[in-house]
Structure formats: C-alpha cells, structure tokens
C-alpha cells in the first residue's frame, strides 16, 4: 500500500496548477477505476473461498469488510491532516480542495466500519452496539468528520474557510491518539489489535490474504473517489468564480455605459 501513499504525496506537491491536476486526473481515473474493480473482484473471490473460522464460523468474513473500512477511516483523516498541512505550511492551492473532497468519503467509510462492526458484534457478543474501546473511538472519529463537513458547508467563501478548517483538522488529528488512549483506558472489550501487532500479524495467512487484498481494493477505491471528488470541487470553484466574474462584467458595463 506504500506506493499509493508516495504517489499521493508526489501527486499533490508538483501539481500547484489545477489545470495540470485536471489533465492528470482525466488520464489517471480510468486506470484507477479499472485497478479498483480488478482488486475488488479478486478480493471478494478470496473472501468467499476461504473456509470459515472454527470458532466464529461464517461471521469472520465480515472482518474482511470491517477492518479495511476502519483502516480507511484512519487513512482518510491522515490524508486530510496532510492536506491541512498543505494549506497552512506550504500554502498549496489544491490542499484545501483535497481536504474538502476527502471529508465526505472518510465519513462514509467510518460509517461503514461502524455498521459492519455492529453487524459483526451481534452474533459474537449478542448486542448490536457494544461500548468497546475501538468502536467508540471510531464513533468519535465519525462525529469529528461530521463536524468538519458541517464547518465546510457553513462557510461560503472557500478562501477564508480553507485556513480555519485546516486548523480544526490538525487540532482533531492531534486529538486522535488522546481519544484512542482515553477510550481504550475507559473500557476495552474489543480483541487486542490482532493485525497491527508489532510482531507481525497474529492471524494465520489463511485469513491474511483476503484481508490485505480487500484493504488494497478499498485504498484504490478511496484514491479514485478522492481524485474524482477533487475534480468536482475544482469545477465547482470555477463555476462560482465565473459567475462572480459575470456579475462584475455586468457591473463594469453598468459603470461604463
């Protein structure tokens, strides 16, 4: 997955001019969507051909959706934090576009992680919602996503809004470890992080392959949607600036005539 990350970094930094970004987006999107579709086909095939877990039975397959979605919600917020740095530190004109485009996508993935988490919890722990550490932190992250989307929608002038929402993204980003630590401290029922363990994944390779492929599929999906959403945002800003230009032209004619 590392190569996607580096592509994202390189793609942002040398594309100060939106037009070149649009050009690249037009060329990249077909490839990205093709690759995403392929990965999903392979992933889903793998999910359903491996035999179920001896103890949880079929429900382990839900993990192949739940875990990648949770990873994606974290990755998306990291991309937004990077964009926030782009706006504040490097004053990159596309950074705010990227943060504003990524927020709704991140919110959807977080919601997906919550829904599949509770669907997985019902057969395993008997209740739809369990206030366990990991689920609660993801829920708080979901609240922060909604807050950011609400903030982006509340501000009409994109220029001014960019810096302010970037500051809030960074303050939120700094808080994620605190929230995670405090919620974890508060109550932990969720099984310890089986995949992210430092000494390598604890679960045996049988489950690992579908998980990683699905994670790659989800990441590619995110990047495809993110580029497309950024393209839309650039167009939306062009439309508003052209409309304001039209209004001013009328003003000019008024004064000259």
């Amino acid at each position, binding site marked *: 997955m590392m190569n996607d990350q580096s592509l994202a970094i390189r793609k942002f930094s040398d594309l100060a001019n939106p037009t070149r970004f649009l050009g690249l987006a037009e060329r990249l999107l077909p490839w990205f969507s093709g690759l995403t579709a392929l990965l999903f086909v392979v992933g889903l095939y793998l999910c359903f051909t491996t035999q179920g877990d001896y103890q949880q039975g079929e429900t382990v397959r839900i993990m192949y959706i739940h875990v990648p979605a949770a990873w994606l919600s974290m990755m998306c917020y990291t991309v937004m934090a990077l964009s926030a740095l782009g706006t504040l530190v490097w004053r990159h004109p596309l950074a705010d576009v990227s943060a504003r485009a990524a927020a709704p996508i991140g919110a959807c993935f977080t919601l997906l992680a919550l829904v599949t988490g509770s669907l997985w919890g019902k057969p395993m722990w008997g209740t739809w919602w369990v206030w366990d550490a990991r689920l609660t932190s993801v829920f708080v992250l979901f609240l922060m996503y909604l807050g950011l989307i609400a903030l982006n929608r509340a501000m009409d002038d994109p220029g*001014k809004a960019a810096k302010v929402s970037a500051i809030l993204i960074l303050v939120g980003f700094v808080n994620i470890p605190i929230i995670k630590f405090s919620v974890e401290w508060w109550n932990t029922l969720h099984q310890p992080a089986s995949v992210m363990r430092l000494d390598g994944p604890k679960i045996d390779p049988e489950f690992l392959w579908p998980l990683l492929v699905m994670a790659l599929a989800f990441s590619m999906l995110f990047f495809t949607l993110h580029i497309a959403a950024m393209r839309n945002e650039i167009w939306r800003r062009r439309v508003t600036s052209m409309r*304001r230009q039209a209004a*001013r032209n009328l003003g000019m004619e008024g004064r000259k005539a």
Partner: protein
Amino acid sequence: MPVKLHVEDLAARRGEDLIFQHISLVLQAGEGLVVTGANGSGKSTFLRVLSGLLPVDAGRVRLEGAGSDNLAESSHYLGHRNAMKRELTVSENLVFWQDFMGDSPGGRGLPVEVAIDALGLSGIGHLPFGYLSAGQQRRMAMARLLVAFRPVWLLDEPTAALDASADRMFAGLVRGHLEQGGIVVAATHQPLGIDGVRELRMTGFAGVFAEAGY
C-alpha cells in the same frame, strides 16, 4: 530618528478578486496621505493591509525609525467600528486601552482625562459608552489615538459621523500629530481640511492606481 513609511509595489486580494496592485510610495515623518476613491475601490482594503489585518498578495510594507520595523506594532488603526465596550464607562475603556497598548518608543500617551478634554467631551467620562450618541462615540474612539502613543495613524473614514465642529477639532488633532513628526494615512470622502497632504486615488477593481499630485 524620524519615522519613514515605505510601501513597495503593494498588491492585495480579497478572496479571488485582485483589489489593487503596484502601489509604491514613501511617507516621511510629518507627512499625511489621503486615500480617496469611489466606494469599493479598495480604500479600506489598503488600510487593512497596511495594518497587517489582511495578508499582502505581493510587495512589502516597511517602517523605519520606530522600535520594530513591523508597521502594525507601531501604528493605530481606527476602523468603522469604535473598538469600545458598550457596558464599560468611557474612562474604563480608555484606561484599558492605555494599559493594554502601552506606548511605542519615542512618545508618551496623554492621561485619559486630558485626552477626553482634548476631544471636547470633558465631564462625561463616567457615562457607560453605550449611552453616548454616534458622534460622541466616534470622538471617544479618536481619544484612543491619544491615550497610547503610536507614530503612524491609519484612519478609515474617521470623520464619518462627525458634525462640522468635530471635523475642525479632528483636523487639529491630525495637524498636531503631524507636527510631532507622526505619519497619518486617512481614507476619506470629504477633504480633511489639512493643506500640504498628498493624495492617493484608488480606481478600483484591479485597475492600476493613479497617484494624484499635491
């Protein structure tokens, strides 16, 4: 060391609209500049960029001869709003601004009572600011310029709510400040009633400015 204000090829932008560009001028100590132009031609933007409240799109603003070369720290900004609290009395407001702002090197602010008398409002220092009329409130906002010393005054339509006598009084204040070697930049429609003042006419939207002679 007399203060000198340098504006080098200044340009400012609000949102996506370029308001003005290529403005360059130098103001010696004791010189005043009146910024004129139609509404929305960028007068307020020019003053707010000088006072550091708006980011500079291009070019630079520099002040020589005052403590620090940051213009904002050694200048007063008097905007459309009076920066006074309605619940506090006039003297409480002025005492606060005197303590909070302190004096720039090279001068001392007047005591609050003297400043109030200078504005012709002696005796109503104890009234809450909210009770005063618009004209009186505007004069009190000007008293803030006197209680703390700043070599540069940036005034955005200072005489907006003032009557004729207040205009003359204000012109006297500005003349006094200039004689002490201060610099005044005022955006205004009516003439300030001060002779020997340079004029900068803003021609509005990204139009190149035309600096009128004396």
